[in-house]
């Protein structure tokens, strides 16, 4: 047979191995489709079939066991020229360990063709069974026969909505079936049934490939032929800078603070603690201070405590931890529970506590304020931070009022009155 895509000479497989038949028929199929040599990107898995690379004149990529379909998917996603043809050679072992990749690629309908070399065992490592080994099939490690029924990989892949799925028996000329799979849009899989001459023939004397396939209940047919256009990712020609689009915070006020202030505010999720802390931080920046802010909350962000550590400083801030805050604000029971351990250890500083909460054990000064009753649960955090800025002379409250009165919170409450009152 004339070869176009394969080098001349013997292929590197055992005598009688179906891998040779597949490689030669792929060459023939590609010839029939007239695909340019360097439009073909062959991605091979680990297994005997994977040593075929050196025999191909096309581009070749040889990866890891079971991951070839994912690797080929990445290549397929990267291609902008629809004429390129990505082909994956994988065995039943690779399809077993990489089943997630097979299902994912088929389901997403990536543009590639998987040629599944199913010889029903692991040929490179001594003939162990794969998930596709049929019930009763004997291998050197299963002399009494496989006690588990292998699954029908074509059924599985077809169920994902793949563009094309078929099974053939690897005897004779299979180039037309391979060409059919290669010519379909999107994801195609063709499973070729084979017998491993080194391990399966000796373990199953007299066995016939067609018979084994039939006995295993594996239909030789086209399972799906939808010819659906494959997935191509969006390539954005231009995206916006993440820095240039950030709002600059003008410094319009002046803070009299000469030393850093470490603040912890703790309340309940859903009560605006994080946004209040950010707003407070922006006001501090607008007053010429350096600021850091961290949020703490449970993984279930919608329930439980919500806390924020803020450091304000006239000098650059290096260490952003604040294990010993100067001021702790607690606006709810969740916040009190979260900070109880810390407050107990505090021997300086001030704890600002909502009036509704029990006074915790602490050596810090405790100041009780009716945050929730005055401002409501939703605005208690903002109200408390307005109060902190004012009482502790951290920065002018006007800096915070500017943001409140100009932004999306404008009109949500009488912020000026709140600032006067606290």
């Amino acid at each position: 047979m004339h070869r176009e895509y394969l080098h001349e000479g013997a292929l590197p497989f055992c005598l009688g191995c179906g891998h040779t038949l597949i490689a030669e028929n792929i060459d023939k199929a590609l010839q029939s489709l007239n695909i340019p040599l360097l439009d073909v990107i062959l991605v091979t898995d680990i297994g005997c079939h994977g040593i075929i690379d050196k025999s191909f004149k096309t581009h070749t990529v040889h990866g890891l066991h079971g991951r070839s379909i994912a690797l080929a998917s990445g290549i397929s996603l990267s291609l902008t020229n629809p004429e390129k043809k990505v082909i994956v050679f994988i065995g039943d072992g690779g399809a077993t360990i990489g089943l997630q990749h097979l299902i994912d690629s088929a389901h997403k309908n990536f543009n590639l063709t998987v040629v599944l070399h199913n010889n029903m065992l692991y040929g490179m490592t001594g003939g162990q069974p794969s998930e596709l080994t049929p019930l009763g099939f004997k291998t050197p490690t299963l002399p009494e026969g496989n006690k588990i029924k292998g699954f029908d990989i074509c059924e599985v892949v077809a169920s994902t909505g793949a563009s094309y799925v078929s099974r053939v028996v690897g005897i004779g000329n299979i180039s037309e079936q391979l060409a059919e799979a290669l010519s379909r849009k999107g994801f195609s899989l063709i499973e070729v049934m084979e017998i491993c001459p080194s391990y399966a023939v000796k373990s199953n004397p007299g066995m016939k490939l067609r018979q084994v396939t039939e006995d295993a209940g594996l239909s030789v047919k086209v399972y799906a032929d939808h010819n659906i256009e494959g997935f191509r990712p969006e390539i954005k020609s231009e995206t916006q800078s993440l820095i240039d689009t950030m709002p600059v915070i003008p410094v319009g006020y002046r803070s009299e603070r000469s030393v850093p202030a470490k603040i912890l505010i703790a309340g309940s999720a859903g009560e605006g603690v994080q946004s209040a802390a950010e707003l407070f931080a922006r006001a501090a920046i607008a007053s010429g201070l350096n600021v850091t802010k961290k949020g703490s909350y449970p993984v279930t962000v919608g329930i439980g405590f919500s806390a924020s550590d803020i450091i304000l400083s006239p000098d650059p801030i290096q260490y952003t931890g604040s294990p010993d805050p100067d001021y702790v604000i607690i606006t709810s029971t969740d916040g009190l529970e979260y900070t109880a351990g810390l407050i107990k250890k505090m021997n300086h500083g001030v704890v600002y506590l909502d009036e509704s909460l029990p006074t915790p054990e602490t050596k810090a000064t405790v100041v009780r304020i009716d945050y929730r009753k005055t401002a409501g649960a939703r605005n208690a955090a903002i109200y408390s931070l307005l109060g902190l800025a004012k009482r502790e002379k951290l920065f002018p409250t006007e800096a915070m009022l500017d943001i409140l009165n100009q932004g999306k919170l404008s009109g949500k409450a009488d912020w000026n009155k709140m600032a006067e009152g606290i």
Partner: protein
Amino acid sequence: MNSNNIIFTDSSRLITESLVRAGADVFIGYPITPANLLYQYASKRYPVFMAAPDEITTLQWMSGFAVSGHIPVTATSFPGYALMIESINMAAMMELPMVIILVQRMGPATGTATRGAQGDISVIQGTMSGGFSLPTFSLSNAADCWEISAKAVEVAVKFRTPVILLTSKEEVMTMYSLDKSSLGPINKVNRTFYSGNETFVPYEPNENLVPEFLPVTSSEHQVRFTASTHDKKGIIQNASPEALANSKRLHTKIVSNLKDFTWYDLDEQHEAETLLVSFGITAQACHEAVAELRNEGEKVSLLTAKTLLPVPPVYYSVCSRYKRVIFAEENLTGQYRQLMFGIQPPAHIEGVNEFGHMISPMHIKKVIHNA
């Protein structure tokens, strides 16, 4: 701060912007805390963004994009990184440029997703089978996030290798005020592909031991990428002399070019006998501790490592000048100290360590005082 350029940002944003400006063009992500902000920004900023179904797929898709000439990036934390390791070996063997951002969190296993740590140095050091190295950079402040991230892209392309950008939860999730005029220009990496007429030999090294790159999209030359042991043509070999030499070259190309990507800050004080060594989040506490100690009349020097791996030889010569060397790092056993000086380091090599908490300047000062 008195400037008209103050923004309130986080390091995830700076890292993302820097990588893209330097030429990274694809982000493949699988969500994991505390790397979520990197994923979120990536979805807006990279020309191509794809959500992968798991971390093994992530690295495989990245490799697929890389063989086509792209520069892919991902961000993960230890649980995801652990799944990526075999595929990182594959990418290194194929000599594919890519950047993997590892945001450290408290382990072991799932640990606590929202607690910071610096506990993955040993895992990175052991990522490659056989003792091979991956260039690994640690980010210690906003300037590093901006400058070192861009350099990571350069190193990945210039030396055809995966590069690890090491950071931690407290760094990428903390917001801070920043004068954006401090962020200098970033040049897009100058990437060239093989353009000769001769047959392309995929793993024929240049003088700097790095082969020229040609993507699988070439219509002129056959290209091979191979993860198994291979010769210069990319053909699988058992252990032929040429193939073994090719594998060894993967190591020598990194260590022999290390001086090209050795970055650190050295703040030495005249007559100081104590050297503090740190990196990443803990370096910030060290800076504060050193400033306070000097105000109190103590003499102390500080080495902030940015190139973590391979360990630049200059770190040893700096350490050798001091009677006392203290490594500050947020892990149980002092992974970087052990990596440099062994499991049982000499008595003058000490450590400040924490697990589950950031190391505070106070803690560092206390250890230094306890001479």
